[in-house]
């Protein structure tokens, strides 16, 4: 193990190039070998798959090799590539939280000049200012937004109607309803607690929705206070009626649980709503409905694409690829899968009427809350999600687990120059 680790550390650039090369080769269509293919790494869900396809078609003479994978894997690969300053990745998927650490570390190319240059050609001033602001760090724009996303409360309308129930409006009602609707073959609720991304999302909702917070104004962790302990205790109580394997479930597993009729309700992303009505994937077409999450404060996020600071490709070409994929026509086409960050599409009444989940999505945006703007949030999330899972699975007391996570968080942030 040690020589293996050291080998990677010695020449991480080559190792990453090799890894990315192998991954790229595996995902290339036959006959698609080209020395200067643009390499893109992305998280994967239906809307991002759509945008990846549009990137591949964006410029007729430029081959774009897209590698899509679950969020944690995409971030690991991007982290390894960028930290070794490898030129093996040109375009990288990032969200409103992960982009902060990439920008802080100097791994991304600021896009301000290209944004100005191509503003008119691609109608870039159509993007909502809040979406652009989300992706600014130290006054510079680093990411072109492709999606606005929020978590919604998914529920089986048919089953709740049959039981004479309404969707819950607070956590107490949610807990009671999950227990009541739970049965051996159909869980009362879904829960997605796989570290780091999925687990953090769910914990974010519980902690903020139940009156807690992640950090104080000095970035000292406060999630281990009384409100935080109550929130994680509530999480433990509700997951008593969650689907099997919820501790290692991410968004894919939770989506499938709802689609395959093995869970009654739960929190999931708006980007997964359309998949509930896809007859090729879902057994519950037309049976799922959505409302804004009980007690609000669920995560609101945005996804987009950035350019690697270490890419050897022409930045203008790369910018045109991501700008083309996020043009108005494409966003209009993707609007059934995701909330678009362009004003002209987001505010289109026809689209709002055509997509069943839009009212709930727009209502959820009003009461949602983004992750803290802390570049190290996913890193401390590594501690927090694991400790909380120790509490949920009974290996630690909730208070002890949160105290341990808070201490580890503080230690890491201190080592990164905070609190001085």
């Amino acid at each position, binding site marked *: 193990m*040690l020589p293996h*680790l050291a080998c990677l550390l010695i020449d991480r650039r080559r190792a990453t190039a090799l890894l990315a090369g192998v991954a790229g080769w595996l995902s290339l269509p036959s006959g698609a070998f080209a020395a200067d293919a643009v390499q893109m790494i992305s998280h994967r869900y239906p809307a991002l798959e759509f945008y990846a396809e549009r990137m591949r078609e964006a410029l007729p003479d430029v081959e774009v090799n897209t590698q899509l994978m679950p969020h944690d894997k995409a971030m690991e690969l991007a*982290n390894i590539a960028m*930290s070794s300053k490898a030129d093996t990745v040109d375009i990288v998927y990032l969200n409103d939280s992960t982009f902060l650490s990439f920008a802080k570390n100097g791994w991304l190319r600021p896009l301000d000049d290209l944004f100005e240059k191509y503003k008119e050609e691609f109608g870039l001033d159509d993007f909502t200012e809040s979406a652009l602001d989300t992706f600014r760090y130290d006054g510079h724009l680093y990411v072109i937004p492709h999606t606005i996303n929020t978590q919604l409360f998914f529920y089986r309308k048919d089953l709740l109607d049959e039981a004479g129930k309404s969707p819950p409006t607070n956590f107490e009602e949610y807990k009671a309803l999950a227990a009541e609707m739970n049965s051996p073959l159909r869980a009362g609720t879904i829960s997605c607690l796989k570290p780091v991304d999925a687990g953090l999302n769910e914990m974010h909702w519980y902690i903020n929705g139940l009156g807690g917070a992640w950090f104080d104004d000095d970035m000292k962790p406060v999630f281990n206070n009384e409100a935080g302990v109550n929130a994680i205790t509530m999480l433990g109580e509700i997951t008593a009626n969650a689907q*099997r394997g919820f501790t*290692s479930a991410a968004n894919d597993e939770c989506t499938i649980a709802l689609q395959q009729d093995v869970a009654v309700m739960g929190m999931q992303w708006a980007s997964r709503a359309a998949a509930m009505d896809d007859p090729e994937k879902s057994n519950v077409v037309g049976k799922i409905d959505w409302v804004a999450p009980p007690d609000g404060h669920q995560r609101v996020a945005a996804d987009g694409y950035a350019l690697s600071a270490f890419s050897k490709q022409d930045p203008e070409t790369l910018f045109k690829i991501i700008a083309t994929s996020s043009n108005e026509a494409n966003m209009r086409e993707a609007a059934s899968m995701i909330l678009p960050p362009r004003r002209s599409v987001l505010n289109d009444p026809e689209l709002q009427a055509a997509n069943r989940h839009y009212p709930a999505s727009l209502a959820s945006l009003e009461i949602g809350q983004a992750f803290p703007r802390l570049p190290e949030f996913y890193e401390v999330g590594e501690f927090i999600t694991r400790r909380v899972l120790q*509490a949920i*699975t009974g290996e630690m007391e909730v208070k002890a687990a949160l105290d341990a996570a808070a201490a580890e968080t503080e230690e890491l942030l201190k080592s990164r120059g905070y609190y001085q």
Partner: protein
Amino acid sequence: MHTQRGLWLFLVPSGLVLTLVLLYPLGYAIYLSFFNYYLGAGERTFVGLGNYAALLTDERFWSSLGKTFLIVGSAVSLEFVLGLAVAFGLYKLTFGVRTLNLLLFLPHIITPVVAALFLRWVFMGRWGLIDGILISFNIFPPDWLGSPGWARMTAVLADAWQFTPFMILVLYAGLNTVDHSQIESAQMDGAGNWTILTRIMLPALRPLIVFVLAIRTMDAFRFFDSIYVLTAGGPGTATETITLYTYALAFRLLEVGKGSALGVLTLLIVAALVALLILVIYRRERGAF
């Protein structure tokens, strides 16, 4: 004498390869372990033994080490007992040994990641093979990968599924080297299979047993791919072995200095463990190995 000296030249190519792929990386990892090196910042600060001191007072290090011992100890013990039982069974078998041997060896030739993916589909909650069969009979089994105790057991079973064939192969080969005259004498004295196995065969196989246990222990300490695919160290830290913690430090938190220090500590622990193994088994026969 001149010829003898010249033979050393044959070692040069393999020595160069070893230096390049083993000793140099090892030396570099040891060097890095003395630095506070966060890849995000890209700057290194010399901290001497600071990383080692931090790890030795880190609760997560001791916890992952404890889980490593538990999982490795359980897996290697299970593999040895099963391997010995099957090898002895094959030894006593009078027909079909080659075919059986070949079939039993199949799990071992599968790439660990592929084997782990296969096992993940076997153990997966609700959609997995075991769950699917049991639930169709209205039996609701435990959450194999989702509850701490079962997840650890699943990790042990996954390792045993893949590496018991290795034990079988080596032990079966060893059993066939035991002096037949001793076995025949024992049989004439009325010894049964159990007595022959424990009193004649096992003592005769002691060097081989040390070898196979040492190899498997070293190998199992590097246990990474299967657990990474099956549980990723979870739920929580229930199956977080020392290699998974090293991975988290180096490739998730990008703390390369600390990750290297943990790699060096792992090397020392495995070396000490193998030395202890040899010492215990040969405590009465020093120098026999």
